[in-house]
């Protein structure tokens, strides 16, 4: 094992050297400088750490070998991430990427974004996603050709914000969540729930804390930033793919919380920031979509996503956004000058008359791209 482990380390060190030299030789666009610097620093740090371990007199000593192997695995994963998520972007950044990155920069300037604006890449194979630690967002190739989907950019901004300001955005919610789960588990003890529910509640807490909470916060940040436009886009996104609205329910697992619960999370933020009718209109469209799709709520579903928890989280996220100095959609102003207002106007136009929407949207898009260059 000693010899093999040493070989693994040497191989990783060599890979780091190759990547570092490739990064050093790159003629990167100034817009890519943050990600190029991040990639270089990570690769070089891992190379130095590996080199240090290779010269460690305790390399392969039985008492620390397992821990050394764990460190090697994390380094290896780190380098695989740099290759997967940063190199394609740094070596293949196109005009389309440049344009949508510029749009995102305008958006972040208008909303009082407290961090460096992210880089946006328009070649995603998995709809919108982000790598928050690299400050990058990936979007579908033609996303800049319509205004309707762009509110989703703010959802990914929410993930990035969460990485840096988790405590500010979640407030006292975690305590409340734990208390809720304990309260449900006490119902098992008093025989108000079946005995096997105890483990299900443990699993529910795992899903909430490790995964769902992040998605709900990202949804709520997006709603704070672009308002009902994000709610309308959520209904559009759900209508365009066959994911059941109530999945996952109790006893089910998924990385994302249920689409229905996400809609209620969006509405909770709107209830705090907009007239009641705003949320009611979105809810009415959602209900008609659900009725058309024939989906029904499974038993015990609401135990997973009670309104009280979503309302508490919404209050914490809105307060957190305000603390961070983010500008809510309410203060957006003129749609000619402000992207969140433009997204909202686009949605109102689309809902009012989908037949003529394209005719309305095209000149706005042309004007927008002209402004950005």
């Amino acid at each position, binding site marked *: 094992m000693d010899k093999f482990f040493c070989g693994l380390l040497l191989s990783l060190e060599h890979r780091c050297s190759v990547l570092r030299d490739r990064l050093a030789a790159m003629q990167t666009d100034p817009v890519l400088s943050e990600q190029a610097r991040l990639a270089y620093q990570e690769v070089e740090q891992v190379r130095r750490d590996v080199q240090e371990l290779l010269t460690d007199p305790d390399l392969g000593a039985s008492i620390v070998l*397992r821990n050394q192997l764990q460190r090697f*695995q994390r380094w290896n*994963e780190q380098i695989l991430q740099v290759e997967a998520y940063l190199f394609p972007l740094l070596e293949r950044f196109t005009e389309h990427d440049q344009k949508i990155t510029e749009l995102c920069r305008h958006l972040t300037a208008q909303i009082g974004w407290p961090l460096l604006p992210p880089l946006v890449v328009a070649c995603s194979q998995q709809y919108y996603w982000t790598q928050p630690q690299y400050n990058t967002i990936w979007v579908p190739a033609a996303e800049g050709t319509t205004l309707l989907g762009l509110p989703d950019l703010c*959802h990914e901004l929410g993930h990035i914000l969460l990485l840096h300001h988790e405590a500010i955005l979640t407030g006292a919610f975690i305590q409340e969540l*734990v208390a809720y789960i304990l309260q449900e588990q006490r119902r098992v003890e008093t025989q108000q729930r079946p005995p096997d529910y105890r483990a299900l509640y443990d699993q529910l807490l795992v899903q909430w804390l490790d*995964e769902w909470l992040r*998605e709900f916060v990202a949804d709520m940040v997006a709603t704070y930033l672009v308002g009902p436009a994000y709610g309308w886009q959520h209904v559009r996104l759900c209508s365009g793919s066959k994911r059941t609205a109530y999945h996952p329910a109790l006893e089910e697992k998924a990385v994302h919380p249920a689409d229905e619960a996400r809609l209620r999370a969006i509405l909770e933020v709107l209830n705090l920031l907009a007239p009641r009718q705003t949320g009611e209109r979105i809810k009415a469209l959602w209900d008609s979509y659900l009725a058309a799709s024939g989906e029904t709520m499974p038993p015990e579903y609401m135990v997973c996503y009670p309104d009280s928890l979503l309302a508490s989280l919404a209050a914490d996220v809105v307060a957190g956004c305000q603390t961070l100095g983010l500008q809510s959609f309410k203060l957006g102003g003129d749609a000619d000058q402000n992207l969140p207002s433009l997204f909202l106007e686009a949605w109102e136009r689309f809902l009012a008359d989908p037949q003529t929407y394209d005719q309305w949207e095209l000149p706005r898009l042309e004007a927008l791209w002209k402004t950005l260059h």
Partner: protein
Amino acid sequence: MSDISILSHEYKVASTLSQMLSQSLILLKKAHYALPGRERITSEAITVSQRELADILMALAHMMKQEPSQKIEEAITLQIPRVLVVRLQNERSGDLDYYLDDLTQAADRLRQGIDQLQEKDFALLDHVAQEADIQASSVFRRMMRM
């Protein structure tokens, strides 16, 4: 809206914990067992490792007790994946109280000094580090679709 956004955050938490545990354990073992490489370690680095490991063990103990208290919140902010807590709870469900005592006592000895540490403390820390390692690898594979 891809799973990657959530998984990348989840991986960051799991890998940071795993790296911290393995790095700190190596330092403490070098010092405690007087390995040849101990001369390269500063006393400051050892002190930091002792404190970080003690904090993790105390956070784990509070989270495993499931008390909706301020301490739970502090534990969460230390960024311990909840799935790891539940896995340990299930594994030690038969003797959970004893395990919580072990965690607390090991944390106390870490704070008292490296010479106070016992073999069973290192075994416990190694087990936690291994669970963190498993969690980090598992999330990484899901994220990278490996």
